[in-house]
């Protein structure tokens, strides 16, 4: 056994020396044009990806979303729980950018009154009163990225209210809540996919590589899990979470529940890929060189399927975001005070309320945009992952 390990160590060193040598020779021998043919696979993928405009746009939107989520507390003018009870169910306000020809954003002050017929509270903008929107204004204290205490907000007003997307029944600013809620909505997908990846990559690759009874067992397991309709199963599992659990625990429990089904898809895809790779010469070479199964799986198979893993996990994100928002919308997912887009949408469940205050539906558009962007990105990555076909 030790002998084998020593040998494989030795072969590894030889291989490393050889590869650096090959590269330097290649560079010496090739003219710059020919060098293009020696570009790495990753480089080719990148080139192919960058040509796909719509996928790049999707990628940029996602990057932006995550950046906003990271600095959400700074960008949002109000904190999650800040209530302006004077302004409940306020419709989205219009921001005027130019004040007498000069760039000076402002909103009109509001006069509250009651509709004489329906007795509903209505707010009328008061053109006399112009409230300037100030940048880098001091407001409620918060923790930037959850660590650094700060109280400067990107924008805000000194009096009255600035509410880009309206307020809810308790006078909480929807824009702030959506921006801060994106933190949970977007990370639940990331954590869920990461968990599915860990289970799925391991079981999928083992299933394809070992074959036989291991393959059989894992495949039967996947079949059983897949024979459940996903949403009802998720609903039943999340409904079983004890109500006294802390919000954070519920959050992680939900990511685990989501990945309980999520991994099967990933494992299936990877298994197929590995079944094809298993027959390749480089695996045979590694086996002959005395590499252990673990070495082959972790050093050869998983890296070889890496581009596919990226594609698959990007394409798995929309399903996770969708599932979380659907479950939270039904009241079975995250619970207040945790705030995600799905939780915000719970208010839209009541049709009468929704008809009176349609802006409560806005969080749903954020769900749709993020899913759309992930779909575009994933689609582009899928094409790019196979750079040898045009």
């Amino acid at each position, binding site marked *: 056994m030790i002998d084998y390990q020593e040998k494989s160590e030795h072969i590894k060193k030889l291989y490393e020396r050889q590869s650096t040598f090959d590269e330097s020779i290649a560079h010496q021998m090739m003219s710059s044009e020919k060098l293009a043919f020696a570009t790495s696979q990753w480089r080719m993928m990148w080139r192919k990806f960058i040509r796909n405009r719509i996928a790049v746009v999707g990628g940029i939107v996602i990057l932006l979303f995550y950046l906003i989520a990271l600095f959400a507390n700074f960008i949002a003018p109000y904190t999650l729980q800040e209530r302006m009870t004077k302004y409940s169910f306020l419709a989205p306000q219009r921001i005027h950018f130019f004040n007498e020809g000069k760039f000076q954003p402002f909103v009109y002050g509001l006069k509250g009154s009651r509709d004489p017929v329906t007795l509903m509270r209505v707010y009328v903008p008061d053109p006399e009163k112009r409230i300037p929107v100030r940048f880098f204004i001091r407001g409620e204290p918060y923790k930037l990225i959850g660590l650094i205490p700060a109280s400067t907000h990107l924008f805000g007003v000194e009096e009255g209210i600035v509410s880009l997307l309206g307020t809810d029944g308790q006078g909480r600013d929807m824009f702030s809540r959506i921006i801060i809620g994106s933190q949970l909505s977007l990370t639940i997908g990331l954590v869920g996919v990461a968990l599915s990846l860990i289970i799925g990559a391991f079981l999928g690759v083992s299933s394809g590589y070992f074959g036989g009874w291991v393959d059989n067992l894992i495949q039967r397991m996947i079949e*059983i899990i897949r024979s459940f309709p996903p949403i009802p199963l998720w609903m039943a599992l999340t409904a*079983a979470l004890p109500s006294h659990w802390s919000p954070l625990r519920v959050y992680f429990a939900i990511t685990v529940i989501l990945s309980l089904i999520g991994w099967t898809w990933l494992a299936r895809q990877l298994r197929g890929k590995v079944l094809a790779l298993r027959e390749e010469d480089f695996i045979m070479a590694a086996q002959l060189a005395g590499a252990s199964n673990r070495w082959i799986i972790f050093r050869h198979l998983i890296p070889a399927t890496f581009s596919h893993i990226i594609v698959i996990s990007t394409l798995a994100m929309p399903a996770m975001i969708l599932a979380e928002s659907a479950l939270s919308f039904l009241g079975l997912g995250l619970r207040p005070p945790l705030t995600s887009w799905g939780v915000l949408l719970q208010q839209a469940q009541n049709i009468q309320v929704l008809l009176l205050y349609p802006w409560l539906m806005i969080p749903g558009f954020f769900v*749709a945009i993020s899913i759309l962007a992930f779909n575009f990105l994933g689609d582009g990555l899928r094409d790019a992952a196979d750079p040898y076909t045009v």
Partner: protein
Amino acid sequence: MISYIIKRILGMIPTLIIISIIIFLIVQLPPGDFVTSAQAEIAASGGGMDASAVEAMRVRYGLDQPMLVQYWKWVSGFPRGDFGFSLEWSAPVWDIIAGRLGWTFLLSGLALVFMWIVSIPIGIYSARHKYSLGDNVFSFLGFLGLSIPDFMLSLIWLVFATMVLGISASGLYSPQMFDAPWSLVKFFDLLNHLWPPVVIMGIVGTAELIRIMRGNLLDILNQQYVTTARSKGLEEKVVVKKYAVRMAINPLISVLGMQIPKMISSSIIVGLVLSFPTVGPIFLRALITQDMYLAGAILLLMTVMLLIGNLLADIALAWVDPRIRYE
């Protein structure tokens, strides 16, 4: 063929047993048993149950016995059509869900039909006019359909129908039709309430099917036998219809099987938002009140529905594509 079908049905039995065990465990997950939670609810609303009544219920449902006995009491009723008793509704589970299962089934079936009718022609068009304006528009719309959650579409439709069109959009009938006797007007009213959930449920699948149809057809149009057909001088219409589409449709049948779980999931959510009498609203309520027999039976029946759907899709595929081997 028949032996293949029998084999498939027999193969479903162990799956069903494992599934019923898993479902039993899931509905057992919440702490306490449902008699306790029912008692708490009754106590909260003022009344109370005396200890002997509670004890009698425990014995009736075998709650004081080991899990295995409880499981057996639960599962042995199924073949006889006894799905347990809902405490919340004080009625046998089957009586509560039978009609709702019908609606769920109808909606899912219609949504599947809708998907096919819409996606196949569009898929053929997109493949034949690759990268044309129409193709790009359809693929963008497809992405859009793929990305808007079904509950969101239902909400948008509700708001749009009520605020812009001024018609009632939720439930089976308009309010003024609730008690009306059956007539043509009432039937049309029903149809008017039926198509939006069908379309909403079908949209996600349609987007997927268009993509698959387009991709398949593109692959097949590049194959040599199609070139041969063309070089024989066959009309393009015949080449596409009789040679290419016939082949490209086969994979769609197995995709159909994969769409069924989504249809079932979607029927629950759309049913909830549009207050349509699918099993969705009852299922959610049963989960929240821990009405264990009801929730478990619904989950099990939906899973059985899915298994049967997959079986039918497999049989259809074997029937349409003679190259499938039955072993």
